[in-house]
């Protein structure tokens, strides 16, 4: 094959394949209807219990519950720190995949489900990919499980539609190691509702709690003679009226109250009625 043929065929094939390129169309961001919101209150959230040390991958997708937050309705995941943890190191990552990423928001709540703190996107750092990790937003925080046992992660409405330009990994490498700078276009990631996140949790100190010494005692109050009389009379009347069903249910109630001779009154009335 001559050089010219190679040049021409390569050139043609390149430009043919270039013509097949497609544009990505950005969908308008519609707010989520309030009718889809799962709960009226944080206390009604379903909380995912966490261990003392754990790495979790999770998705924010259409299967995630929807909650109402100050910055709009959003898909979320709610977590509960382990009762054994006190000081906890938390690393939250949101992975940048295929031009999109969740700009996450982390809010921490106390035992009464009141918001104690909430994160801002500026607190997240962009960590470029390595051999084992993708480019991601990352936030490292330390929580006190005794003060904030609950936290919620959601994709805030206020960030939706915005985007971030991240240095191309080949450029990062070139800058770090003084390599030849590559001619590459830096990828842009749009903030979307759905995405993949990871949570790495490490308990730094444990929480101890006292075991209560108070034993639970059943307090039985004496039944008033008037009540006893009422039940005995009512049972007898019911049997006399041949309403055995009513008599049985009255007997059950009387037993529950601890009226000992209700049963003998029932039997006596039954025997009398047969006479």
């Amino acid at each position, binding site marked *: 094959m001559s050089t010219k043929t190679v040049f021409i065929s390569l050139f043609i094939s390149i430009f043919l394949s270039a013509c097949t390129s497609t544009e990505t169309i950005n969908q308008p961001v519609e707010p989520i209807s309030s009718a889809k919101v799962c709960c009226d209150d944080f206390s009604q959230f379903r909380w995912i219990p966490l261990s003392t040390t754990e790495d979790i991958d999770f998705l924010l997708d259409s299967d995630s519950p929807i909650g109402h937050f100050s910055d709009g309705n959003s898909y979320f995941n709610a977590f509960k720190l382990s009762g054994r943890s006190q000081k906890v190191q938390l690393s939250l990552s949101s992975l940048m995949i295929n031009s999109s990423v969740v700009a996450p928001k982390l809010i921490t709540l106390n035992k009464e489900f009141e*918001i104690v703190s909430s994160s801002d996107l500026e607190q997240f750092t962009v960590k470029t990919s390595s051999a084992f990790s993708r480019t991601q937003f990352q936030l490292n925080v330390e929580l006190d499980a005794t003060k904030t046992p609950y936290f919620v992660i959601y994709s805030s409405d206020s960030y939706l539609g915005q985007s971030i330009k991240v240095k191309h990994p080949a450029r990062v490498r070139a800058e770090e190691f003084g390599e030849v700078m590559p001619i590459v276009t830096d990828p842009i990631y749009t903030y979307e509702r759905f995405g993949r996140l990871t949570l790495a949790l490490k308990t730094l100190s444990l929480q101890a709690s006292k075991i209560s010494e108070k034993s639970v005692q059943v307090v039985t109050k004496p039944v008033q003679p008037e009540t006893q009389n009422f039940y005995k009379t009512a049972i007898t009347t019911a049997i006399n009226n041949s309403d055995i069903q009513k008599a049985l249910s009255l007997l059950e109630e009387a037993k529950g109250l601890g009226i000992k001779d209700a049963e003998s009154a029932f039997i006596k009335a039954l025997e009398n009625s047969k006479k």
Partner: protein
Amino acid sequence: MKMNKYNLLAMAVSTALFSGAALAETDVALDVITGGEAAPKVEKTNGTDVLKDGWEVHGYASMNFRMVDGESIDTEYGKRDYKTAGTHGKSTNQVEFVLKKHTEHVNGVWSDFIVRTEYGNGNSYAYSSPGSQKDNTDAQLEVKETFVEIGGLSYLGEDTSIWAGQRYFNRSAGILSGEFWKQSSGLGAGIQSKIAGNTAGFAIVTADTDGDINNGVNTGERTTLTSYDLYYYGVDAGIGSLDFDLKFMQQANVDEDSGFGASVTLNSSYYGLDGWTQTAIAYGKGTAQNRGVNFGSWSGGDDNAESIFFTSYGVLNISERWQMGSEFTYFAALNELFTAKDLVRYIVAVRPSYKANENLRLEMTASYGHEEGAEGYWGRTGDDIESNIFNAELAAAFTVNADYFGRPQIKPYVSYISADDEASARQLGIKDGTSETVIGVHTEIWF
């Protein structure tokens, strides 16, 4: 992000602000407290507690499959001498691993440990699987860098860091020639800090010559090279920032044993347009004749060696899809350079690049290189004295999306190299005539 005292201070301030502003939520609604949004609290712990710790693995591989008339080749067509700018470089099976351990402590102290190993850089044979490489090449598994850097020590100041080990320090390379023109490559130690808001540092780097290393340890005196580096980076110059480098070099056990090199680098936009450029001028004398600031085992030279170096390269962002890389480099003797009297080299190169889609980029490269010297330099006479080389290349880079962790790229290319005469062509390794066409596939992966 390196954790320093400022970060901690910022966290402490935000925590304090928060604790003053946070109110108990009493409403049933799930609203975030207005005006009291605060950072998730970072608890104050022991200063020596580790905030962040972990290993990172990075790497790179380059497999360049080059053929000329059914033959694999060793020549790089003068790429290293600024004669061509195409993709036709060496390395058939170059693999590189970088291990990085970064640790941050609550008191702001941080450390980095970096190991960079490489195999196969410069290999030009096409190897089979029996593992015969070791017999017929100089390349082997090599440690390119291994060093530790420690910073944030309170008694040195939060912006100060110290390092020691083997590395190539403060390195820069031309974008199309691919040639490293600035570095201090060897074993050494240094300190870096901020002076008037700009990065300033001092380093001592030593390197033994390839000759001494290959002769073995019991062969007499070594001609060890040493460079004393002073640098001051990031000085605002309005149109960009300036980097200053000064290097004093010495060589042991040689008669003419010293040299001096200096460079000024301007980092700015693409000559006023969208993009970036790096423009530098460097002067080198004696031991520092190689572009003044390019120190390594290759350094050395007598007192007649004196050179000037100018380079300007960068990338112009034309549109969303079009980019163009360009380079102009001039490297010449003020007296002698690499023992050649009046040696002059320069290259002009451009590489327009079109991003067809996320997975395909087309690259076109054109370069013109020139070399000349005084009659008889390196024994050259007649047509050999002057070379003018034209190089054109067409390439298509097939790649996966940039966020994919592996980022492999396969780039088929055709490179055409044409010399002004047969003598110049022979210097490049062209066997017949004045031109050559190289067909190749360059595979790269960054991870």
